[in-house]
């Protein structure tokens, strides 16, 4: 089965996604789309449900309610044709300490369906692009936090995915790394038509790269922000405080269905 072309519909389409962690609703009826060639940013305070939402989109968690489709295919049914087009970086960056960065990137490529020779070539390119060449043949366990993040990004990008799902990708990166990442995401998205869903705490960073910004709070989507508008931080906190004041969370949560 071939996934739908990214140009014929949203690459990511989620509807009513809901997940409970015990008595807490971690994600509450979230609807979201990401289309080809756009960078869609998710912002929210810690615990807003951004990572949990991303995990559901990647098949790492099964929703209690709602649906998520990638390239038109339900996530639960997605096979190699879909996953070969998806790159992700969530929580701990991919990378085994006993392998070299080059070996890790080759392994990531191969686990996404790239053959051995192409994996070697593309891994070499990614190591260069993420300026990891100096450490390419050393054990990955010696890498600094920032370079581990670069390695994780290399592993997410090496198989040239059409969809990128990145959770806090600037974690640990130095200012140069942040600039490089910004360039990579913009060129892949606006240049190559890759769909990007990215979460971030850094509102100024989001303002630089995002085409759309969705704000999450307590598992809900509470609104969208215009990345081009002024004083993004002020508008974000206004939205969060209003939601907090008007939201249903002062009442006990309804019981889990």
């Amino acid at each position: 089965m071939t996934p739908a072309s990214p140009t014929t519909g949203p690459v990511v389409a989620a509807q009513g996604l809901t997940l409970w962690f015990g008595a807490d609703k971690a994600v509450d009826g979230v609807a979201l789309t990401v289309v080809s060639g756009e960078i869609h940013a998710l912002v929210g305070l810690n615990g807003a449900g951004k990572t949990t939402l991303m995990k559901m989109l990647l098949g790492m968690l099964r929703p209690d309610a709602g649906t998520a489709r990638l390239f038109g295919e339900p996530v639960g049914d997605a096979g190699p044709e879909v996953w070969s087009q998806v790159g992700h970086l969530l929580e701990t960056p991919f990378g085994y300490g006993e392998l070299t960065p080059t070996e890790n990137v080759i392994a990531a490529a191969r686990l996404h369906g790239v053959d051995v020779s192409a994996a070697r070539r593309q891994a070499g390119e990614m190591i260069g692009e993420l300026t990891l060449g100096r450490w390419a043949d050393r054990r990955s366990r010696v890498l600094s936090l920032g370079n581990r993040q670069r390695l994780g990004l290399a592993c997410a990008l090496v198989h040239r995915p059409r969809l990128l799902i990145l959770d806090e990708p600037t974690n640990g990166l130095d200012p140069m790394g942040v600039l490089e990442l910004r360039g990579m995401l913009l060129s892949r998205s606006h240049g190559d038509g890759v769909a990007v869903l990215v979460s971030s705490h850094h509102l100024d960073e989001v303002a630089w790269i995002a085409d759309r910004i969705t704000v999450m709070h307590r598992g809900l989507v509470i609104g969208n922000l215009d990345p081009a508008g002024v004083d993004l931080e002020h508008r974000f906190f206004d939205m969060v405080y209003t939601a907090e004041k008007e939201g249903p969370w002062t009442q006990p949560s309804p019981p889990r269905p």
Partner: protein
Amino acid sequence: MDAAIATEALKLRRSPVARTGWLAVVLGVPALTAALTAAARAGGDSQLAVKAAAMLTGTGLAGYLGIVGQVTTVAMLVTTGIVTAWCFGREFVDGTVAGLFAATVSRRRIAAAKFVVMILWSLTACAATVLLALLAGALLGLGPPTGDAWRAAGMDLAAGTLMAALALPLAWVASARRGYLPAVAALLLIVVATQIITALGAGGWFPYAAPALWLGMGGPEAAATIGPTQLLLTIPVSGAGIWATTAWWNRAQLT
């Protein structure tokens, strides 16, 4: 080579846990048993000499290989158990498991690849241990291998392999409990349970005790009670553990 097997093989080859465990069996067992045999052959009435002599199930090289087999069964269970626990549990402890989701290679296949490399690891460890033991026997002056010695070496290999296979279900504990330490705890429980069940006289039908009893760890009378049926109980136990683990990985969520 299959992408999952190639990746898992590389990870295991580079792993200090796997390397140390392999060397501990391959060098430790022949060295320890050679020292015991030398003590027994030296005679005397020291406690070590008396205990070592009691472990000898025969004379010459075949007798030495009998001791090797008994120690190998324990060593293979413990080291294969620890390396298996690490191989599966480290993905959760190191947080690398997220990278195994949303990949073209299914998680069931990744778990199966882990079993393939663990089986190769344990087979090579067991074979190298028996080979080095044969060499150590020659150095002890026990003479060249005869029919009895070859038979004893074959039994060592078989019993060591069975014990390694019995360690593989620990992968399920490491996976379901998301870490290697719970699996190491389960391994310790198995070792203790084996001791108790053997002491109660029911070891022949307890898969984790049968291979060592077959090699004479409980004396010749106990060894005579062990037949192929008891030894082959390994297959359903190991098979069920492998099946449960791959099924778990197939359904796993990243909670």
